[in-house]
């Protein structure tokens, strides 16, 4: 069994991080150049970490499977980034952001990590502004804020509907500066396929060069995985086509515990499915819920067009059920409510969709205000659906969007493999069982700019890990493992395409390990995933060769990992006999359909240790709440 030591510093919550920073060991400035650090992924977490570590003087090797650092999926985040600046004088504070995040996460996050996140949130905004991120401003020249789901203060900073893009371009500009200086070496078109562990420490990675097919070895004294989440296990999600779990999954199989795999976020405001050929789902920013009202017909099977349904025949179900938060209720509640009304047969035009209606806001504020706030989102909607949302209410439906689960990390963001750090969505640490809107960008940048640069240094100065030679037998063995795996995939030559199997897995995951789960469905899901995994091994068809650009081979490797991860998600969901946040078990709910947590038995982080295919050992990290009183989450 792994010993989980969260390494939470002692003392008052408000002083933990300051004390810890003081107590951490430092690497002498002239010694920093003796250390090589690998950063995988160039999204918000990876770009900010690689840039900040480069600025400190470490030799950084950064890796991306894209052609450029700027393409990482953080770029697609629309709505905003939270920070407890209290610029609006509406009662925000570090403690309030901390409290909202713990509560929003349904009391399944580690208090100390969340407090630190809130504590550094203000510095993130300062940093971004200094980099030239053009946040929205008020007429007086001050920064503008908007409100977001799960909060009653305005603490969200934004840059039109492209906040992720602007924050990422800011972080990547800092990274580019270090690349220009030669302090960071960026390896593009490289996909990490294995972690190299020597004597129990992370010492490097094995990558496939996606242009030449070459299997390359890279050594370092610390490895940071900033590789995002795993929503694409559902095939259809709001994640980009290439988002995948491979880096963290291979690290998991090399000893890093995987925590809370079942905590997935289904985002309430996505475009509904158009048909079989659909390749992904498109998110409409949650910020739309600030001014849009969500409703469905009161009558079942009402197939009239939205504008033909009179006011008194509309059910504004979120406003009705949650009068104080209304349309801004947290994501899990909003998503589940949408599914409920559609399952009742009250979906828009009888289908799987609900309306998001701006007609009242347009009447109240004028079209130009709505256009200024959401113009580009409305354009995107019209481009995709062919309908004009200024005139016809949008149709939306929930879709997998974010995964709160990920590799287990301690307070220093280090996994159970010494020297292996996990940042951003790839770790499990800050959002508990549900993430609040505009908090993903905050966490990615907090980890990369303000946490890892300290804690990685502490590891290097404390453990003084030696540099491994890439000719070490462990590097060669791991390289061979990767090459053999690729050979195997290319030689199966069965009848099913990679996408066909991925779509099948997606359907199993959505139906059995989706928004509402139960014991029977989960058990069926586990069997079906196992069967599909065997089918993949025997009957998948991967065309082409390794020594070339081979996108089918890239996808095949990723799907092979999803076929294992999917099972862990189901196993984790089955073991957690409670409902919390994004994990809703139908057996555990109140009479009014609200999630029923079981704090006596499940107030812990489930960290799964890999043993063999389909077999994991459960390790528990108990969660202690010393600053927030456990309560039933209420947004009524």
């Amino acid at each position, binding site marked *: 069994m792994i010993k989980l030591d969260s390494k939470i510093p002692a003392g008052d919550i408000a002083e933990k991080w300051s004390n810890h920073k003081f107590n951490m060991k430092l690497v002498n400035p002239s010694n920093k150049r003796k250390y090589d650090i690998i950063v995988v992924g160039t999204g918000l977490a990876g770009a900010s970490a690689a840039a900040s570590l480069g600025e400190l003087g470490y030799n950084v090797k950064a890796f991306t499977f894209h052609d450029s650092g700027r393409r990482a999926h953080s770029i697609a985040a629309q709505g905003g980034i939270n920070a407890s600046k209290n610029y609006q004088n509406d009662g925000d504070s570090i403690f309030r952001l901390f409290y909202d995040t713990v509560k929003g996460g349904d009391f399944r996050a580690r208090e100390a990590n969340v407090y630190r996140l809130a504590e550094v949130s203000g510095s993130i905004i300062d940093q971004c502004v200094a980099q030239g991120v053009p946040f929205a401003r008020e007429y007086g020249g001050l920064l503008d804020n908007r409100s977001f789901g799960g909060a009653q203060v305005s603490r969200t900073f934004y840059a039109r509907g492209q906040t992720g893009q602007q924050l990422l371009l800011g972080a990547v500009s800092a990274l580019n500066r270090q690349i220009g200086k030669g302090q960071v070496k960026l390896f593009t078109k490289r996909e990490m396929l294995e972690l190299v562990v020597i004597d129990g420490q992370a010492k490097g990675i094995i990558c496939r060069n996606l242009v030449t097919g070459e299997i390359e070895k890279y050594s370092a004294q610390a490895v940071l995985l900033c590789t995002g989440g795993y929503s694409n296990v559902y095939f259809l999600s709001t994640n980009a086509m290439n988002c995948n779990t491979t880096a963290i999954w291979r690290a998991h199989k090399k000893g890093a515990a995987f925590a809370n795999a079942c905590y997935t976020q289904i985002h309430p405001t996505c475009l509904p499915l158009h048909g079989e050929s659909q390749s992904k789902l498109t998110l409409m920013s949650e910020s739309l819920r600030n001014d849009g009202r969500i409703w469905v017909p009161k009558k079942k099977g009402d197939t009239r067009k939205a504008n033909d349904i009179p006011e008194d025949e509309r059910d504004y179900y979120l406003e009705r059920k949650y009068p104080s938060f209304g349309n801004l209720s947290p994501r899990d509640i909003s998503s589940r409510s949408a599914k409920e009304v559609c399952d009742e047969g009250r979906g828009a035009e009888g289908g799987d969709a609900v309306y998001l209606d701006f007609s009242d806001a347009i009447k109240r504020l004028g079209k130009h205000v709505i256009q200024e706030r959401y113009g580009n989102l409305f354009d995107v909607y019209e481009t995709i659906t062919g309908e004009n949302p200024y005139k016809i209410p949008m149709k939306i439906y929930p879709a997998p969007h974010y995964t709160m689960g990920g590799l287990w990390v301690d307070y220093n963001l280090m996994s159970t493999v010494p020297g292996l750090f996990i940042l951003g969505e790839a770790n499990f640490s800050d959002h508990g069982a549900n993430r609040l809107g505009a908090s993903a960008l905050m966490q990615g940048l907090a980890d990369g700019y303000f946490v890892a640069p300290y804690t990685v240094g502490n590891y290097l100065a404390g453990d003084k890990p030696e540099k491994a030679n890439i000719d070490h037998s462990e590097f060669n063995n791991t390289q061979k493992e990767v090459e053999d795996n690729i050979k195997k995939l290319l030689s199966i030559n069965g009848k099913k395409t990679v996408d066909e199997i991925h779509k099948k897995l997606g359907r199993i995951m959505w139906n059995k390990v989706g928004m509402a789960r139960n014991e029977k469905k989960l058990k069926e899901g586990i069997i079906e995933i196992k069967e599909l995994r065997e089918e993949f091994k025997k009957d998948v*068809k991967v065309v082409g060769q390794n020594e070339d650009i081979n996108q089918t081979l890239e996808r095949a490797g990723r799907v092979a990992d999803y076929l294992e991860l999917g099972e862990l998600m189901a196993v984790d969901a089955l073991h957690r006999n409670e409902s919390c946040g994004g994990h809703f078990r139908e057996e555990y709910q109140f009479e009014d359909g609200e999630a029923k947590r079981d704090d006596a038995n499940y107030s812990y982080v489930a960290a799964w240790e890999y043993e063999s295919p389909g077999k994991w050992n459960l390790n528990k990290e108990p969660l202690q709440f010393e600053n927030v009183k456990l309560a039933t989450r209420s947004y009524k």
Partner: protein
Amino acid sequence: MSSNNLKLTLKIWRQESSSSKGRFEEFKVSVSSDASILEMLDELNDNLEREGKNPVAFESDCREGICGTCGLVINGHPHGKIPKIATCQLHMRNFKDGETIYIEPFRAKSFPVLKDLIVDRSALDEVLYAGGYISVNTGGVPDANEILIPKDVAARAMDAAECIGCGACVAACKNASAMLFVGAKVSQYSFLPQGQPERYQRVQAMVAKMDEMGFGSCTNTYACEAECPKGISVTNIARMNNDFIVAKIRSAEVEI
């Protein structure tokens, strides 16, 4: 969203590697009008794979028009003829039943074809490494509200910052010029107070690198703006030229 099926003829550029000779290959497909053009290629590829044939290599990622990964020349237009969208946002309802569609990679001297529809755009990143940033380290920066920025100035910086780095401007230009891309980055920082200290150094460094990477010059045809998925304005090129000239004069003054 009323959908119907379209029968189309595709003529797609196939090229095994940067050193091999390319050609058009013809495919007949049937596709839902609700699908995007990339979803049509997904379906085509799935069928090719089933037949044991090599799928058409093309890049895409977010499929929401923001990551800048996708970029195809469709019937002669980078990202297709509909204004202000990326390739991934082009839906088949914009085509007619029976139509023939030509699909090619972005073509420019600085963008060598790697395979089929995939080109190497790293030359654009090289320009950014040379100066596409404000030199601030993490930490030690002033409070975000310390420096006031007028709303319209922030908005104009944002207009320039919306560039997604796809390279359509280069592909659209008969000179394969990258001046819209570089001008947008230069302008974003020129508008903002934070960008002032390095304003003139930056423009010189970026222009020098742009020339070194083999991008052509601007001859004011405005094809870049017309094809830009974000509608980035050519005034950014004028602003860059202005800054570049001022930088020249300033550096001459220093030398005297």
